[in-house]
């Protein structure tokens, strides 16, 4: 009973939030509400027993996707322009479609019905629940279905994630200049070129409250968010540790490669948000991130190749060890690792791609010859900058 109450309440929240997203004109507020929407949806997933999905939705929907939207918004205006005319046509169309779909649901099996076709097909849920412990091993059925029964599919998904990462990199430009690998280590405190504010640090001006119109809000931003820095320093190691726990505990509880990868990336994203991209790039150079992206797919595909070389089918882990169950265990470990590595790499590189694009223009380039940058700063209006940063490494 209380279960239905919780579900009903959370679903109603979702509808209210969705209406809020429609109405709000401020895109930033809409993005914030979209994060809330994902959070509520993830809560509802837990009540509906989908713990692994809730895990992923919470990490992806509320975290990474909010950050990606913010990254895109930083290039564009925060307001959508008012439009009126087409809304009525659209509303009529949407209401009619919705009514038809609701008419269609009247024949659907009711929520929680154990007799619905999805629950009774002998080769699907029934088989997974009854025989997976003997055929694959892990108590977490989601892991065993994901990794073993549907191993091909997961390979495909991993490749899609990898391909999306490549696509974003090619759209937003691989950043070659300023790669920290070529940089001399910076003296603490000097941080040349990290910030766009030309004036050196001046504590008196800092606290005087004078707002320099030339530097504007950027001047504010140089404030000491020391609390955030200290807390971030404290939290990031725990987050990394927790990601490893999620990665390797995924057989026994909710978790696995997808979730761990996203959480691992979140730690670096948090670091990048607080300490600046430049510092995060020193910790996690983009070249390493690209290697992670490809390496994970390589691990996954390599596992498939090994099983074929050992005489089995592609991704048939039984042949990996003398005992099929042990083989499954090794196989699952390997492919979860592959998934985790790829997802980590792709998520971090997405963050780098979106966050670095604007900073590129402002930061002095560090080419090998030490020449100054050619990219001009862009005004707030966002004048077109066709192609100037799209081929940085060429």
């Amino acid at each position: 009973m209380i279960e239905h109450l919780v579900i009903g309440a959370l679903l109603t929240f979702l509808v209210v939030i969705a209406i809020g997203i429609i109405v709000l004109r401020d895109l930033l507020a809409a993005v914030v509400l979209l994060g809330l929407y994902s959070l509520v949806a993830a809560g509802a997933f837990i009540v509906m027993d989908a713990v692994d999905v809730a895990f992923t939705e919470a990490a992806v929907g509320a975290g990474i996707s909010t950050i990606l939207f913010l990254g895109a918004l930083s290039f564009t205006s925060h307001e959508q322009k008012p439009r009126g005319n087409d809304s009525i046509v659209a509303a009529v169309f949407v209401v009619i479609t919705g009514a038809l779909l609701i008419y269609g649901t009247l024949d659907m099996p009711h929520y929680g019905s154990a007799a619905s076709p999805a629950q009774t097909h002998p080769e699907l849920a029934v088989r997974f629940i009854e025989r997976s412990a003997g055929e694959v091993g892990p108590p977490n059925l989601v892991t065993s279905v994901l990794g073993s029964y549907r191993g091909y599919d997961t390979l495909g998904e991993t490749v899609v994630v990898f391909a999306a990462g490549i696509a974003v990199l090619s759209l937003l430009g691989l950043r070659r200049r300023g790669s920290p690998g070529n940089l001399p280590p910076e003296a603490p405190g000097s941080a040349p070129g990290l910030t766009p504010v030309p004036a050196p640090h001046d504590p008196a001006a800092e606290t005087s409250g004078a707002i320099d119109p030339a530097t504007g809000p950027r001047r504010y931003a140089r404030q000491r968010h020391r609390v955030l820095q200290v807390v971030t320093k404290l939290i990031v190691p725990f987050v990394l540790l927790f990601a490893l726990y999620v990665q390797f505990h995924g057989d026994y509880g909710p978790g696995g490669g997808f979730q761990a990868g996203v959480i691992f990336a979140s730690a670096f994203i948090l670091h990048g948000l607080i300490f600046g991209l430049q510092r995060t790039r020193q910790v996690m150079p983009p070249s390493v991130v690209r290697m992670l992206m490809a390496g994970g797919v390589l691990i996954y595909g390599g596992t498939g190749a090994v099983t074929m070389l050992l005489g089995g089918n592609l991704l048939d882990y039984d042949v990996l060890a003398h005992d099929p169950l042990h083989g499954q265990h090794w196989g699952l470990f390997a492919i979860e690792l592959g998934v985790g590595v790829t997802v980590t790499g792709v998520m971090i590189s997405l963050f780098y791609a979106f966050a670095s694009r604007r900073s590129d223009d402002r930061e002095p380039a560090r080419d090998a010859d030490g020449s100054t940058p050619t990219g001009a700063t862009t005004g707030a209006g966002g004048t077109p900058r066709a192609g100037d940063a799209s081929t940085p490494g060429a």
Partner: protein
Amino acid sequence: MFAVATIALLVTMVLTLARALAGPTLFDRLLAVNSFGTKTVLLIAVYGFMTGRPDFLDIALVYALINFVGTVAVLKFFELDDLGSGVYQEDDY
């Protein structure tokens, strides 16, 4: 006992949601969303106990973390309109 806590949390979520939708400033929304996240964390914990499987508390941990990351990201974006530059860079670091 857990049912009481669940209902209390749901009621508070309604109130928080009202604030998130009403605004008026972005900070109000952000405060409400952040607070909503904490309530979700508590709801998951309580719900785990209520259904007798408190081994899913890991998820609540992720919520606490992601909530923080999201809030910081929006704040930083609001301050600087940008995610990448070293906004929170300490000058005398």
